[in-house]
């Protein structure tokens, strides 16, 4: 009932974890019934180890959180030796997420992912707001196209390009990614934000700014999903504040083929199974399919 297809991949449901919210490895999968999860999207891997940003790295506000983890990860070599072997034979497809400072960084990571049997698809994190240079590819369609084209040349695995919401108009970037060989777009990464401690006269996060996620960003992501769905012919994977079945169906109506669940999994790591169960009930009750609803938004 919930099965979903993107490029050559069949997913049990349209629900995916959001990169950076379910770990570097499959350990947290134990909270979910594999039949409820479309794909496990793992945290960004960069060529070299990154120690991440100083603390505090996360803070909460009314409606969400702001984080500046800074892509902490042990680097590609560690991931290749330690994590990649654990991905083979998992009951759900794994989407590995690539990050870096320049096109060569992305190509290096994507090339490695291409050779890993446990990696079913690749997501390019061209939009992390917490590392210098990361945002550039998502605000400049020429730079973005170059990176996506270069990555496409070294991998034939389904490739998702994760876009930034921190732009005036997301459509030129969506088109650039689609024209450069992306199989799907993840829309979108976190919104840049800042929380301030007025007593200390300083930002709450040590990094100053961070990426805002959670329920408060859903309307922004919804608008961008709708814009991207109208602008390109490749599937859209919504990402931004979804926390329940109704949120998922709203994104599907706006044009999403799949929906990532991120911040909501911090509160409840089993939330995706809950959402899948609710989706089945709602669709049965309404006698509808996801295909009936997809892109049915009346504008």
């Amino acid at each position: 009932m919930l099965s979903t297809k993107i490029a050559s991949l069949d997913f049990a449901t349209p629900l995916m974890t959001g990169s950076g919210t379910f770990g570097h490895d499959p350990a947290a999968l134990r909270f979910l019934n594999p039949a409820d999860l479309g794909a496990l999207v793992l945290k960004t891997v960069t060529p070299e180890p990154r120690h991440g940003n100083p603390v505090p790295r996360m803070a909460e506000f009314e409606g969400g959180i702001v984080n500046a983890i800074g892509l902490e990860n042990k680097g590609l070599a560690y991931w290749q030796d330690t994590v990649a072997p654990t991905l083979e034979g998992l009951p759900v497809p794994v989407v590995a997420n690539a990050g870096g400072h320049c096109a060569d960084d992305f190509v290096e990571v994507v090339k490695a992912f291409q050779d890993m049997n446990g990696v079913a698809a690749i997501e390019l994190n061209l939009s992390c707001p917490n590392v210098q240079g990361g945002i550039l590819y998502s605000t400049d369609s020429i730079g973005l196209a170059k990176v996506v084209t270069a990555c496409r040349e070294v991998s034939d695995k389904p490739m998702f390009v994760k876009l930034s919401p921190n732009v005036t108009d997301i459509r030129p970037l969506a088109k650039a990614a689609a024209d450069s060989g992306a199989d799907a777009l993840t829309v979108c990464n976190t919104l840049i934000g800042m929380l301030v401690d007025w007593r200390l006269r300083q930002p709450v996060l040590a990094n100053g700014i961070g990426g805002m996620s959670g329920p408060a960003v859903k309307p922004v992501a919804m608008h961008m999903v709708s814009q991207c769905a109208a602008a390109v012919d490749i599937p859209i994977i919504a990402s931004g504040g979804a926390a329940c079945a109704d949120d998922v169906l709203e994104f599907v109506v706006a044009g999403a083929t799949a929906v990532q669940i991120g911040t909501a999994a911090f509160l409840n790591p089993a939330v995706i199974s809950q959402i899948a169960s609710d989706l089945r009930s709602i669709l049965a009750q309404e006698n509808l399919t996801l295909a009936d609803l997809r892109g049915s938004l009346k504008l």
Partner: protein
Amino acid sequence: MSLSLDSTQAVLAPIVATREVGEQTWVIDVEIEDITSDFGPGQFAMLSLAENSPTVIARPFSLYERPAPNRFTFLIQKMGKGTAALVDAPIGTMLRCLLPLGNGFDVAAVEQDVVMVAGGVGSAPFLIYAQQRIALGARENTHMFFGGRTQRHLFDHQSFDALGINMHYSTDDGSHGFKGNVIACLATELDKKRISKKSVIVACGPAGLLHAFADFARLRNLNAYLSLETYMGCGFGVCNACPVPTSVDGKFTDWPYAKTCTEGPVFSLADISI
């Protein structure tokens, strides 16, 4: 090097009792029928309201007591809307509980002197730890230094008194026990050799206290452990929001940070750099 999540359970459980134990602080009991895992001293749970949570992330709380196999007690100080929602919730309110999490205290050998050092709600992991020591027959060589701003901040001290372990109270205003902070109180007892400097000394409390304790313990070359209270996004190792710097010569040699949630929250002072 991280804790396996294999024993962690995500469950819904009702609040079955609440009790005020001092300034803005309560203990709440939840009843979990289908708990299958061990949940020991120093480990913690992420708690939130199951419905209409006013926060988008849960809050971490050490296990305070386990008065019955399926009953779990947590010490909660009202700090903001997340903790307020938990302590103000009526009996019967369902909580979302993720537990057990983290690595708890290594139960030191019976003959080993153990000294617990708590500041305010830093007492949270020590009641059950002391109970476990007593069950092992180690009541006589279990000591606790419990400090607070005032007597109202020595939360639930009657429960500690009832244990019959060696209690040392301190308050900033002198309203109960030693006048001064808990580390000064500990220093006095060490100096008078009423506490052996070979003891295992475990501290828990606010960041300022833990930093002061770390400096003190290093200076005196004590066998020290800390139970860290750090901001956590998830509690189960996926968000990377709770790093603590590691020491260059400790057990975390491969990375400059350890995750408080899965590699702690109890650390040997030798392994971290605070």
